[in-house]
C-alpha cells in the first residue's frame, strides 16, 4: 500500500499556499508536479555531469552519453519496446505526433487517401493531421462518440477502408477521461493493414502500457505529464516503420556523412534526433519513470481510482451538475459543468480558494462543440492527492453554488 503522506513529502510544491489557502492541485492532466528526485536529478546533472553527447572523446561527454543511452533503455523497459532504438526522444507528445504525421505522410500519404482520428482528440492529435492532409490533398475522417463520451465502435469498420493510411487515436481522453479500447481498435486496424498511432499523453501516468502487447505502431507521451520535466517526450515507433520513414529534422546527430552534394542519415534512433538533445530533461524523465516504478503503477492507479470514486460520490449531490463524459472505463479525471454557472466564474472562485482546476475547452474544442458547452471544470487527480483535498474542493464548490446559485 501507498503512504500518501510520504509521497507528498517528495513533492516540494505541495507545501505551497495560495494567499491564505493551502494549494489543492487538481490540474494534473495539464501537468503533474515533480518529485524531489526528478528536480535533483536535473540539478545534479548540471552541477556535476553536464556535457554535450555522442561526439566527444572526453570523460564528461562519455559519461553523459552513457547516462542518456541508459535512460533510453529505461524507457524501452517502461513501455516494453522490443528494441531501444525504437525509443526516440522528442520535445513532447505534440512533437512526437508531428514527427510521425510529417514523416509518415511524406512517404505514405497521397492524394485522396484518408487519415482517421477520433471525435475526442486533443488538438495535438488533430491539427498535425489536418496540416498534412491539406498538403497532400488527403482527407481527415473522424470516428464519432456517443453522449457518454465513448467511441461508437460500430462505425469503425466502415471508416477503416483501403484508403485509410493511418489511424491516430488517444489512449485516454484529456477532456472526458475515457479510456479507449485501443487493443481491440488496433486489432481491427491491423486486420486491414492500417498502422495505428496512440496518443498516450494521458495514459502512461495511470495505466501499465506494453507496446508489444498492444501491438501499436506508434506510441506518444510527454514527460511533464508523468512527474517528469517539461520539454521532453517520447515517440515509440516500430522499427519497420521508423526504418522506412524519411528523417524529420536535419542537423547534428542524425547524419552519418555530409557533403554538400549528398547526405546519408544515421541509423535509428539517431536519424530522428537532430541537434543537441535535452540530456538533462531525458535524465529527469528517467528519474520520473523510476519514481513510478518504485511506487508501482498499479498502486498509483488504485489511489487515483479511489479518489475518482470518492469525488464522484460527493459531486453527485450537487444541483444542476452535468458530468461531461460518463464512459465506463475511465482515468482519474472528472469534467463537469453547472448548468447555471459559467466555468470561468466557477474557476475564478475556486482559484481564490486555493484550488487549481482547469476550466475551458482543454484543447479539445470539437469535444466542447459536441456537448454544446463553452468548456468544463476539470478536476484531475494524481497519486499525491487526498480525500481531504477533495473535501476542500467540495466545500469550495458549495461556496460557488452559493455565490452564483
Amino acid at each position, binding site marked *: 500500500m501507498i503512504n500518501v503522506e510520504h509521497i507528498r513529502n517528495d513533492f516540494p510544491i505541495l507545501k505551497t499556499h495560495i494567499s491564505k489557502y493551502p494549494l489543492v492541485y487538481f490540474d494534473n492532466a495539464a501537468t503533474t508536479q515533480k518529485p524531489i528526485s526528478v528536480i535533483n536529478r536535473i540539478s545534479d546533472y548540471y552541477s556535476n555531469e553536464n556535457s554535450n553527447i555522442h561526439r566527444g572523446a572526453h570523460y564528461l561527454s562519455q559519461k553523459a552519453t552513457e547516462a542518456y543511452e541508459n535512460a533510453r533503455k529505461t524507457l524501452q523497459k517502461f513501455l516494453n519496446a522490443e528494441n531501444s532504438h525504437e525509443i526516440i526522444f522528442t520535445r513532447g507528445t505534440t512533437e512526437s505526433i508531428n514527427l510521425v504525421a510529417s514523416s509518415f505522410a511524406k512517404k505514405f500519404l497521397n492524394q485522396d487517401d484518408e487519415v482517421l482520428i477520433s471525435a475526442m482528440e486533443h488538438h495535438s492529435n488533430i491539427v498535425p493531421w489536418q496540416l498534412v492532409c491539406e498538403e497532400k490533398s488527403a482527407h481527415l475522417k473522424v470516428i464519432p462518440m456517443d453522449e457518454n463520451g465513448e467511441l461508437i465502435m460500430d462505425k469503425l469498420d466502415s471508416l477503416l477502408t483501403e484508403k485509410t493510411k493511418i489511424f491516430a487515436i488517444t489512449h485516454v481522453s484529456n477532456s472526458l477521461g475515457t479510456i479507449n479500447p485501443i487493443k481491440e481498435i488496433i486489432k481491427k486496424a491491423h486486420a486491414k493493414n492500417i498502422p495505428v498511432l496512440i496518443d498516450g499523453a494521458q495514459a502512461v501516468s495511470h495505466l501499465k502500457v506494453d507496446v508489444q502487447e498492444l501491438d501499436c505502431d506508434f506510441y506518444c507521451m510527454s514527460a511533464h505529464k508523468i512527474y517528469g520535466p517539461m520539454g521532453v517526450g517520447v515517440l515509440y515507433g516500430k522499427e519497420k516503420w521508423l526504418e522506412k520513414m524519411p528523417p524529420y529534422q536535419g542537423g547534428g546527430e542524425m547524419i552519418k556523412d555530409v557533403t554538400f552534394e549528398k547526405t546519408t542519415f544515421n541509423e535509428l534512433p539517431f536519424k530522428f534526433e537532430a541537434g543537441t538533445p535535452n540530456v538533462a530533461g531525458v535524465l529527469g524523465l528517467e528519474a520520473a519513470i523510476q519514481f513510478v516504478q518504485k511506487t508501482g503503477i498499479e498502486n498509483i492507479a488504485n489511489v487515483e481510482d479511489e479518489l475518482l470514486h470518492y469525488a464522484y460520490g460527493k459531486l453527485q449531490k450537487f444541483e444542476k451538475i452535468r458530468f461531461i463524459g460518463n464512459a465506463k472505463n475511465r482515468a482519474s479525471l472528472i469534467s463537469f459543468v453547472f448548468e447555471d*454557472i459559467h*466555468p*470561468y*466564474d466557477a474557476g475564478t472562485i475556486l482559484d481564490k480558494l486555493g484550488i487549481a482546476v482547469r476550466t*475551458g475547452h482543454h484543447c479539445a474544442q470539437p469535444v466542447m462543440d459536441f456537448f454544446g458547452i463553452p468548456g468544463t471544470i476539470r478536476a484531475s487527480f494524481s497519486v499525491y492527492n487526498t480525500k481531504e483535498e477533495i473535501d476542500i474542493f467540495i466545500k469550495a464548490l458549495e461556496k460557488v453554488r452559493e455565490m452564483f446559485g
Partner: protein
Amino acid sequence: MTIKEIEQEIISEFEMFDDWLDKYNYIIELGKSVQEIAPQYKEQQYLIKGCQSQVWLHAKLDEGKVVFTADSDALITKGIVHLLIRVLTNQTPDYIINTELDFIEKIGLKEHLSPTRSNGLVNMIKQMKLYALAFKTKMQNQ
C-alpha cells in the same frame, strides 16, 4: 464626470471591501445588473473571443460621444465589463483614445486583464479604443 473621476469613484467603492469574497460578490452583483446588449448585437461580428469566456461589444456615436453596450457569457467577466463601460461610455473619442485606465489594477482585479487569461477583456479594451478611433476619423471627415 471625467474618466479619471469615475475611476476614482470605483476605487473608493472597492476600498470598502476588506476581503476578496465581498469584492467578488459585488462584481457578481454588477454582472447581474449589466444593461444587456440588444439581441441584434449578440452576434458573431460583435463577438470578442476568449478561450475561457466571451464578450460582445457594441458602440455607437451619440452627439460626439461614444456609447458602449456589452455583454459576456460569464458573470465575473460581465461585472468587469460593467465597470469598463461605466468608465468609458459617454466620453469623447479623443478622450477615450488618450486615457490609460488603471482602476482595474487598483481595485485588485488585474489578473483578469492578463493577456493570458483569455476571457476577452484585454481585447475588449483594445476594441473600445479602436471604436473611438474609428469615430474620431469619421467625425474629422465630416
